[in-house]
């Protein structure tokens, strides 16, 4: 890639990042333009992914090779498009019925496997120690706390029983366990988001260099200028409207 294109790319990247961040102040035309550009680019990306990773290798190439069985799922898939034509939109129900059917067929055994068996096996597994002794006391205690917390959380999710007495106490303990987990998950995800933010700041810093003709600084200054002008012009308009 030539130097000119690199600089141009830097300006585009810095500009789009700052335009999106400008939403933190207030809605503005730069944010709107970037939002629509992002939407269009996202759809374009999805379209080419579907075209090159689904249509060509899974429909077009098998058909050219003489495998006409792929026509069955293809026709079922295309039947969904009939939704746009009210007179024949009933055809789409065949496709939907198939999707719902295979979806349920896939999910039910998987749910049984993960929600029941893996969960029970995982909770019991800390108790599978070679012997009960002083050395295994702490792992066993840890396993017992996890098992007790697990049972209490399940009690909280009992819907057909009124939560009072012992059930209420157990469900309250369950809520504490849930909140502990959510707190940890919150911290963990926020850390992840910060690393993404650092990535954007790192790029903005990179594009603020002389090599990119101070792209970040120039665009940021232009944005600030726009907001200052727009602030005064909107105030003037409001005053005129009030006077009228």
């Amino acid at each position, binding site marked *: 890639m030539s130097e000119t294109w690199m600089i141009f790319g830097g300006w585009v990247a810095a500009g789009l990042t700052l335009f999106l961040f400008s939403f933190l102040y207030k809605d503005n035309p730069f944010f709107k333009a970037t939002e629509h550009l992002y939407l269009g680019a996202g759809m374009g990306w999805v379209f080419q992914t579907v075209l090159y990773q689904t249509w060509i290798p899974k429909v077009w190439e098998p058909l050219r090779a003489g495998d006409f069985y792929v026509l069955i799922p293809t026709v079922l898939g295309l039947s969904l498009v009939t939704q746009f034509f009210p007179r024949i939109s009933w055809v789409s129900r065949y496709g939907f019925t198939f999707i719902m059917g295979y979806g349920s067929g896939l999910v039910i055994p998987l749910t049984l496997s993960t929600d029941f*068996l893996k969960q029970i096996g995982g909770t019991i597994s800390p108790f599978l120690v070679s012997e009960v002794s002083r050395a295994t006391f702490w792992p066993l205690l840890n396993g017992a706390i996890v098992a007790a917390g697990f049972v209490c959380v399940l009690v909280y999710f009992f819907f057909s029983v009124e939560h009072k007495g012992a059930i209420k106490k157990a469900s309250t303990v369950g809520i504490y366990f849930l909140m502990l987990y959510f707190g940890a998950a919150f911290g963990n995800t926020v850390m992840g988001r910060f690393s993404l933010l650092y990535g954007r700041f790192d790029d903005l810093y990179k594009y603020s260099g002389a090599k990119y003709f101070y792209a970040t600084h120039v665009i940021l200054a232009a944005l600030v200028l726009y907001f200052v002008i727009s602030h005064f012009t909107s105030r003037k308009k409001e005053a005129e409207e009030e006077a009228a």
Partner: protein
Amino acid sequence: MLKTRLNLSFFTVLFAASAVSAAVPASTKNIPTAPDLSGFAAADMPYDKGEAVLVSWPAGPADVPGAVYQVYASSGAAWLKAEEFPAEKKFAADFELPFWAWSHDKAKHAVQLELPQLFSDFKTGMEYSFKVKYVNGKVTAESAPVKAAPKADLFNLARLNNLVLLLVIIVVFFWTVSHAKRKGLFIRRIAGLDAIDEAIGRATEMGRPIFYSTGIGAMSSVPTIASTSILAEVAKKVAQYDTQLKVPHFDPIVMTVCKEVVKQAYMEMERLDSYRDDINFFVSQDQFSYAASVDGMIHREKPAACFFIGHFMAESLLLAEVGATTGAIQIAGTEQESQLPFFFTSCDYTLIGEELYAAGAYLSKEPMLQSTLKVQDFGKAFVMVSVITGSALVMLATWLKWPLVLKVISHIFKAY
């Protein structure tokens, strides 16, 4: 004197003879012997999709440190080395299959060969040849080639525990359906769902729209299915109060299903004249483009209520935060535990995992749906009882050294 000498000579000869006789077996012990590989067999790997073959042969005294087995496979042309491993490893006992589906034999070597990894032109049902070679220094032995064809199995016996569980759930389901029809079922209060009326009432009073997002899940995901059933109830109330509803979509299939759901809700409330086809509209199938666009819409249209119910990932906070800044009453619900904290912090009410699945039954009060809740509760009770008794039994079996009990429990509660 002569007698003494004769005795001495006799004992010397006897000692020498005993030493020689003791030395002969010792020297033969060090000479490696080749194993008998006549028991080598190959067969289709049970309970698979038809891509693997199982080769097996008896273990023996030749399985000493330093010795290796080499397994070869051929599709008709040259032999390919498929596996090589130390002779004292890879037994039938090492397979992670349950006791009801597999014989954990410690006296038999067994190796599972994944044929697509060996042959680029692999076809299920085609016959392949296999042989095993024993190598221990200069001592080698080779089995006669045997043939086997992999085939796909319809039934996976290893998942018998899944099937039994499913059958139990089906029986419990039918029992609870009949019970619910006869006597009705109690469902405890769920605050997030009670707030739906409040949110729609607020939107009606303020004359502002209601935004409902089903998230980024496909129609096959359970939270999305649950979300459509909540949407149906929300749409009924919206139709009743003649409020504005907007449902931006990530997935075109979910959008089409939701269109039908909303239309049906308007029909049930006899307000089909108020139904518009653009209540449900497609936005983007790119996660963050969707989030950016819905954020923009929420910011500009300032809805009175926002519902974020379904499968959400990183866009959860982006959506809920913008909704919170507009002052909308927000009700969220997802099964994604990593996203729930964000909904807690930015929404007024949050449905946690299972509460989302209970919503359809809670709102509609239909006996059929209510009985599914009861079945779920039975499932939870089963899990609780299994965890408590399983843990107690495991502890007891470890204490009293009952390996069989440990094996049975660990195999029953394992997902294969």
